[in-house]
């Protein structure tokens, strides 16, 4: 079981308060993703849960028992680090066996678990190599293997895929999701990759400067962002946030329209502008439209890949009123 509850947890490094009082509930078996801009305290929060940092105040409970004062090893959590943190002088087999050796598990049980993990993670052929002789993806799998043999209450991942190339990242992402489906163990996953957050999470926690801005399922956050920050953070490319006269005419201080919710026409529409850069992805094209009276930022608009426009063309835009987000002067959803 891996139910983790944070109650009024704060963390300061000397004078600097990194995490203001924060409450968070993580249910058993959930896949929770922490996202937020760099330096917002994602890693710190994860390390607090792991026990690698001491909380300044507040309580952390795991499965209902207070774990605030427990040493990392006693919390029953396993962590996968961004740098993998494998032990370079031990073979893959010994790396994976290390936590079990520390727990003094019987030899045959150790062997059984190593074989099972190696099979699940495609590491069987590499068990006798050193980490230095493995590729990045293989190293990451060893790190995951070392975590799963402990059969922990929950897994903690700190940007585990950010050192991998794009193709490998997609593959490993699927493997981790597969693992979660199979083990149904709680997983907490830190990333600043949009796509990872949206595709993997049961629940996304959006952080800004240590504050939780919103907690919800990926689609909740996509359809109903609680404020401008979440609106701008979730979704790729970013939501267009428009202030001023145009926003007021829709009855809000700021309106947000996602690039995919704007219709494009060469002949008519309420908004008009000039085509700037166009990013062709094949299936889709993202056009940056410069226009007068709606701020300096160009609007990003998604069109079908077949749609052809040239730089400097004049086009007309029709936002989808039903999918428009309205925010008040404080940036909160109206």
């Amino acid at each position, binding site marked *: 079981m891996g139910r983790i509850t944070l109650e009024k947890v704060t963390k300061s490094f000397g004078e600097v308060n990194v995490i203001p009082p924060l409450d968070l509930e993580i249910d058993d078996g959930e896949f929770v993703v922490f996202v937020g801009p760099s330096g917002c305290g994602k890693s710190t929060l994860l390390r607090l849960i792991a026990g690698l940092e001491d909380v300044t105040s507040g309580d952390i409970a795991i499965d209902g028992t207070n774990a605030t004062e427990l*040493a990392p090893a006693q919390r029953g959590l396993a962590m996968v680090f961004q740098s993998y943190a*494998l*032990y*370079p*002088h*031990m073979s893959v087999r010994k790396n994976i066996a*290390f936590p079990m050796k520390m727990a003094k598990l019987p030899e045959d049980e150790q062997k059984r678990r190593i074989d099972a993990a190696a099979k699940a993670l495609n590491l069987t052929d590499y068990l006798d190599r050193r980490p230095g002789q493995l590729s990045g993806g293989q190293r990451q799998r060893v790190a995951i293997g070392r975590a799963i043999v402990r059969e922990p209450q929950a897994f903690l991942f700190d940007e585990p895929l950010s050192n991998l190339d794009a193709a490998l990242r997609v593959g490993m992402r699927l493997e981790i999701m597969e693992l979660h489906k199979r083990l149904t163990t709680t997983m907490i996953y830190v990333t600043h990759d949009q796509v990872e957050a949206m595709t993997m999470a049961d629940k996304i926690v959006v952080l800004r400067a240590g504050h939780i801005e919103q907690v919800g399922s990926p689609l909740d956050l996509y359809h109903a962002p609680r404020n401008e920050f979440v609106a701008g953070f979730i979704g790729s490319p970013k939501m267009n946030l428009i202030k001023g006269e145009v926003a007021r005419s829709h009855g809000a201080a700021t309106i947000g329209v996602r690039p995919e919710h704007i219709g494009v026409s060469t002949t008519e529409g309420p908004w008009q502008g000039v085509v700037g850069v166009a990013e062709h992805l094949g299936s889709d094209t993202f056009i940056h439209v410069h226009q007068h009276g709606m701020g300096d930022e160009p609007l990003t608009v998604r069109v079908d890949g077949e749609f052809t426009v040239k730089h400097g063309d004049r086009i007309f835009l029709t936002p989808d009123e039903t999918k428009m987000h309205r925010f008040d002067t404080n940036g909160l959803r109206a």
Partner: protein
Amino acid sequence: MATQHSRAAARLMISPAVLLLLGWMLIPLCMTLYFSFLRYNLLMPGMEEFAGWTNYRFFLTDPAFMDALVNTLLLVGGVLVITTVGGTLLALLLDQPFWGQGIVRILVIAPFFVMPTVSALVWKNMFMNPVNGLFGHLFHWLGLQPYDFLSQAPLMSIIGIVSWQWLPFATLILLTAFQSLDQEQLEAAEMDGAPALSRFWYIMLPHLARAITVVILIQTIFLLSIFAEILVTTNGGPGTASTNLTYLIYMQSLLQFDVGGGSAGGVIAIILANIVAIFLMRMIGKNLDA
């Protein structure tokens, strides 16, 4: 073709340096070899004659030789053990954050900058002297009979002095090794349930292996030829209790004016040093492979 050209040019360019080095090493070596086969005594100049293996036979059958050999090995081994173990522990301590870290680190390194003769004199007169030394006073204060370190345990005393000199070197090298250890590895081990002692044994020590090897190899080179400390403190005595090979050779050639015998001793010392080197490389050399 260009590479062949540049390789030839490179050879030409470095040849003066190589020749100089060769001369620097080869000429003294050859002269030592040559002298070692002569009957060459400074008291009888101009009467050198070829002596065959006599010098070697005398040197090797001298009862002082076995003593010196054992003393040399004890000295090297003792200092190595004390400095690597002590250096590891000190480095571990200095790696922890504490107040006044900078000053303490400089203080720890300070003994390395003291000349061997000076430090040996300081130890001899200010610490180990049974009448005036600090240890003597300490023994008095405790109501014990003062212990005359240099005459009752001469070799141990010299091992102590030399260890004091070399401890900073070992500490410094091992401290930098500690600092290059990835903190995440330690954290991972902590999460894996390894208590402090296991973390030291399974994570830190293997990481230090290479640095420890370097410390041992470099120190061995210098410790095989310890001389000043012995000359200043015990003069190799009492008897041969603190005579090492270097000191024996010195006695042979400069106190007994027997250049031939001293040279033979020198050649034997070179051979022994190489045996020690081969032995060491066999034991710990693999730690140096990346």
